């Protein structure tokens, strides 16, 4: 198994509060908070592309890890909101980051679970490629706020990017195990069409996530002889605070061991787990012996879990 060497993130400067959004959507600001746990989110500038945000998060991650662009063997970029059918933002991000010409880059276009999947792929490929830079970047407001906007969906989303450097040789935490899952039975319940139509059957998504994520987390913990009360921090896709609380409660995680940034960032889809990880990581002087669990669930449905232990 490989190591997590560093995290990084980028949030656009433009803050959109619940009050501002409520006026736009003709709903109540307090309802937004009670339904989602979100108070504000960021919105990318009009000319700020997914590759631009990915580049900023990637740079922050490389700086945090003390790694030069010349040392990157592979770039993986997760994004479900990329405006083009192809190419995805990976190759452009590699160029903007200044990775050496010819370094491989891979797009993972699966929305919310994308960062977790990309980390698992990076873990598996680090033995061949050395340092693998994983970035997740999303411009969800452009999609979710498109007229006619559905307030139940529009209140949730924000823009941003997160990054994680996975290294073959050394890092702050060693990846212990991971498990990836998919179930296409509900592919139409959460989808973005090519014409920009965004559809989310919230009830079904929450129902499936509330069942599948705790089951997957518990299974991975058991497989590795970990119990929930030995997990120091759960870093998960910041979908909705109420859902996150349910997942933590369902696996028996002690209070205070799930890190959340959703109040300040909203749901940034695939970027959200790494944005949370970057913020949490900045607050930790040391990760030594800390047990970290990652979890994400999203369109597909795709979901996954990962365990790592500080070194």
């Amino acid at each position, binding site marked *: 198994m490989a190591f997590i060497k560093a995290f990084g993130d980028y949030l656009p400067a433009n803050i959109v509060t619940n009050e501002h959004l409520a006026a736009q959507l003709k709903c109540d600001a307090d309802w937004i908070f009670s339904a989602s746990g979100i108070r504000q989110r960021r919105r990318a500038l009009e000319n700020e592309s997914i590759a631009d945000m990915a580049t900023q998060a990637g740079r922050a991650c490389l700086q945090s890890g003390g790694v030069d662009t010349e040392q990157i063997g592979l770039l993986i970029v997760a994004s479900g909101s990329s405006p083009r059918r192809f190419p995805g933002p990976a190759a452009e991000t590699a160029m903007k980051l200044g990775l050496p010409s010819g370094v491989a880059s891979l797009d993972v276009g699966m929305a919310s679970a994308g960062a977790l999947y990309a980390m698992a792929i990076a873990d598996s490929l680090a033995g061949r490629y050395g340092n693998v830079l994983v970035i997740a970047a999303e411009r969800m407001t452009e999609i979710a706020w498109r007229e006619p906007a559905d307030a139940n969906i529009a209140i949730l989303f924000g823009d941003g990017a997160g990054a994680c450097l996975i290294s073959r040789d050394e890092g702050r935490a060693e990846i212990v195990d991971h498990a990836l899952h998919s179930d296409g039975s509900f592919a139409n319940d959460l989808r973005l069409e090519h014409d920009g139509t965004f559809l989310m059957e*919230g*009830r079904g998504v929450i129902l*499936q996530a*509330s*069942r599948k994520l705790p089951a997957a987390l518990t299974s991975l913990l058991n497989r590795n002889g970990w119990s929930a009360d030995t997990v120091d921090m759960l870093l998960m896709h910041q979908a909705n605070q*109420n859902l996150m609380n349910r997942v933590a409660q369902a696996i028996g995680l002690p209070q205070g061991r799930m890190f959340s940034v959703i109040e300040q960032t909203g749901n940034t889809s695939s970027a959200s787990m790494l944005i949370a990880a970057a913020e949490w990581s900045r607050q930790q002087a040391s990760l030594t012996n800390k047990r970290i669990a990652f979890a994400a669930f999203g369109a597909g449905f795709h979901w996954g879990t990962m365990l790592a232990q500080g070194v």
Partner: protein
Amino acid sequence: MTERDQIQQVLGKISKTPLPAHASDSLFDAGVLDSFSLVDLVAGLEQKFGIKIPDSDLNPRQFDSVERIEQYLQSRR
């Protein structure tokens, strides 16, 4: 106690909102269920009726009224 009584008992435990007048009325429209209490309803039905509801059966519309819940439980026999 009939099966309908048992379903209503489960609903009563997860929501303080009165049940709608007719068994065919939507529990979501009546405010008895929302996205999160739906999760509790499924868990409550599993416990009350000693069944495991597979993820493939978790279509919210299947649990939208007392009548539909009854029909679902009957289909499991």
